[in-house]
């Protein structure tokens, strides 16, 4: 009880003490919170993107089969479908048609694709939300395409996919098979790759080996490998940004070191007064500890809350160019809030704890001096 009353009294004094130097302490708090905000934004963002990628890929086929010619991905004959279908354990095998289309007017690459089912007429397309945003002017609601042999065709945009799938569909244009073949030049009887659904996912490794045995010029890719690639991609991007932020973090610690540790003559005198009127060294250190805790904890919570709002409610405006999308077409979507407590705990121990310790050490140096100096002040 006495301990609680003591801490309450120290905290009370700490707060009024901090308020006396409000310009200095508020600027310190804001810079500190900004650093936490940047770091936790990256953490939240990469974590949410990974979750997003995982959930998007949840329904994707267990295996993709590509054909490899000269060590490179090549078109795969549709006749391969039958051979893979004969392998026990596969539930369905479908050819996939997809590619990229460069639109010179917007200087943007779009992904063009034939969906499993496309019930619309051949002269229509369905587009991702980002396509119409960037395409430029339409002609009577139609998009102008050039086929692989230079012929011009106009396709009507009839449907736009929602923002919720924007991470993967921002640049996507869906069309019928015949239109796709006209634009891409992929001949009849060939596809880009084959998607294979497997009844029991645990058998995927065996089916992969059987596929390679039956069709030696193919390269099967399992879903878990794709997920792993996505995760390492986002981790790499997040890591890249964090490396850049290390500079900022270091600059902050130099600033904090200077502000928190450079006790002014006034502060030294105050510590002398406190000791003179009956505080002992541990009381002074406790007061300084609370000072460090108040600043660093407030900055931590301010930064983390701001980052949460920034990432999940403002689409991470500051980072999206670095962390999501490619080319010049950036997806626009809201991430589902997801927090990794382990990462937050690490951030806490890398920021709050060092700062609090930083503030105590120089105080200790002053606080261990004999209080009689105050008599001579």
């Amino acid at each position, binding site marked *: 009880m006495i301990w609680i009353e003591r801490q309450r*009294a120290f905290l009370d004094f700490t707060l009024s003490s901090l308020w*006396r130097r409000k310009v200095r302490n508020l600027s310190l708090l804001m810079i500190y919170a900004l650093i936490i905000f940047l770091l936790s934004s990256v953490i939240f963002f990469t974590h949410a993107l990974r979750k997003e990628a995982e959930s998007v890929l949840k329904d994707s086929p267990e295996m993709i089969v590509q054909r490899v010619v000269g060590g490179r991905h090549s078109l795969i004959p549709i006749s391969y479908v039958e051979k893979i279908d004969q392998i026990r354990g596969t539930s369905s095998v479908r050819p996939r048609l997809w590619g990229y289309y460069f639109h010179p007017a917007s200087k943007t690459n779009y992904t063009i694709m034939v969906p499993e089912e496309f019930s619309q007429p051949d002269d229509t397309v369905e587009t991702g939300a980002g396509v119409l945003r960037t395409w430029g002017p339409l002609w009577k609601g139609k998009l102008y395409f050039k086929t692989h042999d230079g012929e011009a065709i106009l396709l009507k945009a009839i449907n736009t996919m929602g923002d919720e799938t924007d991470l993967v569909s921002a640049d996507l244009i869906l069309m019928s098979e015949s239109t796709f073949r006209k634009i891409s030049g992929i001949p009849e009887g060939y596809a880009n790759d084959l998607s294979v659904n497997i009844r029991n996912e645990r058998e995927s490794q065996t089916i992969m080996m059987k596929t390679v045995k039956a069709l030696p010029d193919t390269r099967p890719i399992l879903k878990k490998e794709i997920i792993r690639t996505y995760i390492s991609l986002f981790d790499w991007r997040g890591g890249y940004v964090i490396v850049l932020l290390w500079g900022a973090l270091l600059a902050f610690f130099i600033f904090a070191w200077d502000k928190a540790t450079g006790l002014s003559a006034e502060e030294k005198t105050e510590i002398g007064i406190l000791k003179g009127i009956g*505080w002992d060294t541990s009381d002074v250190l406790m007061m300084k500890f609370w000072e460090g805790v108040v600043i660093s904890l407030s900055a931590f919570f301010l930064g983390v809350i701001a980052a949460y709002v920034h990432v999940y409610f403002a689409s991470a405006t500051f980072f999206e160019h670095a962390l999501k999308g490619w080319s010049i077409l950036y997806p626009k979507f809201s991430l589902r809030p997801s927090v990794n407590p382990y990462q937050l705990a690490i951030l806490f121990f890398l920021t709050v704890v060092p700062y609090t310790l930083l503030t105590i050490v120089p105080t200790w140096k002053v606080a261990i001096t004999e209080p009689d100096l105050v008599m001579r002040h």
Partner: protein
Amino acid sequence: MIQLSGIKKTFNGGKSNEFKALRGIDLEVALNEVSVFIGPSGSGKTTLLSILGCMSRPTSGRIWLSGREITSLPERFAAETRRETFGFIFQNYNLIKGISVLENTMLPAYPTGMKYRVIRDRAVSLLEKLGIMSKSEEPVEHLSGGEQQRVAIARALINTPSIIIADEPTAHLDTELAQGLLDIFAGFRKEGKTILIASHDALVFESPVADRLISMRDGKIV
């Protein structure tokens, strides 16, 4: 009874700027009296008071307070003794700027673990008694010298000490305020407190409130 035996204090011992502030003080001071240490600047008055008040340790010698030896106490117990037994009134008041009169008054009680409400009530009653309650929420630097002096007195009394140590308490006060302060000291004596004052102000040592004068020069009692 406060007993001092062979108290010496040397600053920067062994260095070229070595200074012997106290050169062997043997003294007995009665409790419940006003004792005034007089002497010129540099005679060792302040050093002796700071050693008496457990603010610093003598280089050699011992002090007993009511039979209890207080010179070799570990830092924590020295601070506790300083807080609970002594109340200090410093020459320059040594109030903490930027915080209110009330908070300044309450400060010495914070480490005691007393309930906040109790500390606050006690501070309010002291400020009322000293006639500065109306300024309790003002930052101390807005107060006049005499008012700051009274805040320093209230602060010195917050832990109800039995001994009050005042170092040149009238140095920044005019005659009227100095007389008012001596009246306050007279009141403390009536309450049974021991008052140790260092001063070279004639108003203090010629005052009837002073029970005993102790002259010092060059670090010795003369």
